[in-house]
């Protein structure tokens, strides 16, 4: 199942299928890649927003936690991974 990272339920692991690079500015795109967000990488949505807003989104990627805005997450399409398929 492919969904946008912006709508991925918290705690759900997924693999990035494709990123709509043209919808991001070149700088934003580069920053995402520097933080390790690119195709084929496994991510997990950890925390989303606070009292006043659904922004931003904290994503676990490798051993790192990265914060992005919902606008960026909307450009990232992910394949949801079945929980048992995740390597322990």
């Amino acid at each position, binding site marked *: 199942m492919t969904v946008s990272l912006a709508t991925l339920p918290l705690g759900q692991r997924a693999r990035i299928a494709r990123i709509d690079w043209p919808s991001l500015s070149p700088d934003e795109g580069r920053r995402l890649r520097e933080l390790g967000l690119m195709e084929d990488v496994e991510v997990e949505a950890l925390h989303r927003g606070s009292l006043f807003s659904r922004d931003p989104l904290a994503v676990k990627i490798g*051993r790192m936690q990265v914060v992005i805005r919902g606008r960026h997450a909307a450009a990232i399409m992910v394949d949801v991974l079945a929980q048992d398929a995740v390597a322990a």
Partner: protein
Amino acid sequence: MTAAAPLVALVGNPNAGKSSLFNALTGARQKIANYPGVTVERKSGRTTFADGRPVELIDLPGSYSLTPASPDEAVTRDVVLGRQDGERRPDALIIVVDAGNLANHLCFALELIAHGLPTVIALNMVDMARRDGLEIDAARLAADLGVSVVETVAVRRRGLADVMAALDVAILAGARPATAAPTTDRALHDRARALATAATLSEKPVERWTATLDRIVLHPVGGFLILLALLFVMFQAVYAWSEAPIGWIEASVSAAQQAVSAALPDGFWRGLIVEGVLAGVGGVIVFLPQILILFLFILLLEATGYMTRAAFLMDGLMARVGLSGRGFIPLLSSFACAIPGIMATRAIPDAKDRLTTILIAPLMTCSARLPVYTVIIGAFIPDRTVAGTPVGLQGLVLLGLYLSGIIGALLVALLLRRTVTRGSAAGIMMELPRYQAPRVGDILLGLWQRAWAFLRRAGTIIMATTVVLWLLLSYPKVPIGSAQSQTDYSVAGRIASGLEVVIRPIGFNRDIALALIPAMAAREVAVAALATANAVDANGDEAAMAKTLGDTLAGKWSLATALAFLAWFVFAPQCISTIAVVRRETNSWRWPLFMVGYLFALAYAAAGLTYWVAVGLGLG
């Protein structure tokens, strides 16, 4: 071999522990300057090889790659490539990587290694990685990368000698041929990940502490309440913990005044020392305990990694007014002082986002305003708790003043982002570092630096202005038998009379007119100025001398005037140093002048509104 000490640059990702390593290697032998033309700090320091030969180290701004996203990162690139004005190309690099985040940090390391400079990799924070269940094979990594890899724990000063030894060997071996780094981000990441995987001996996928804590701290509702509670405790503590030390300082100043009065005959010198220097400077030093308590909290929140969590929680709210959570850290630092806050905005990548953050930073209540708030609150707000709760009314009013500044700032930002700083939507992309136990030594060093900076101000700018003000207040002497007070008759009193015409409509009196002029130099001088003016008027009258400044004001000002004065200082004219730093950071006079203008207008309006409403409610 060159005759000069080799220049070695420390480079690495943000949060790799680069500055800790720099501090550990150089100790107190540091020099902070600016790169020419840009406002990026150049931190350099000296250390030695085991045999005593000197090495010059520079600490470059943390960066994710050699393609810069901010002015800070541009300096990192230019220094590494030897293109930075005023800096020779480094003879070697120490690349600092976080052992717990190897795959990501190796990307930048690979880019750097490709340039062929003699290089040592400091595999830092190995202790935390181990705690997280991660074992890294440093030898394997070194073999794969072709440069030495040394395990370090900078905050515990472990591995320092090994780094220096490896550096010595690397410099002697000379430059390596430049190699081709993978050309696309994709290929670079794949290579970094492959290297990290190969060098990882064992890995448990858990980072329990951080994950568990984050579930609580970043909870959409609970996390926000924790943040508010922390801020609340912080501002209550500023009052509760400072009571005793303030008492000691007041007692010492008053003892010093009595000693001088007893030792010197009545005259110019006695007046200058007792009423000018001791009353003025003493009136400001009394706030040292509160400033230190505030900084203690800010330093602790930074050192533990909580600050970025606060940025996460605040980002949604800040997005509404066109800012990003990245601006939260500079703004929170501005509670201590707007100057480091404004300098911290350099980390904000978007230019318009950054400019807006700079323009609203002075609305955050800096510690220099604390003395003003404390005196007025102490004099006019009763020291009691609110309706059966242990919450102090004075602390609550203080919190209210801070909140007014914040709300004002958010509204101003909203307005600016739709008018003068209109631009692309700001974003936030940052890393949430792992939680860390703060190091007592680092916190104490930070507190000491703050205390010293404050005392130096008290001893220089504040002392000079209070002495000048005392002279202006004391001369010419009022004729014996005149109905006028000494203050009214003096030069300063006459200047204030002119200013008073302008500020009379918003409920301000001559005392305030007198205090506002020197307060432009440093805000806390307002208190010193009030203290000096009162000391001059009390001359000879022992009962009046014995009264504290607060008691005197409570007898002279109406509540409406006091509230208007507080409202003025929420938005008020910033100190001259802040204006200077905005000029430097924005590289023009346009923005600092704009800032001064809008702040004056806002302060005048806020004070006026407060006064008129208070008078309307019968508090005049």
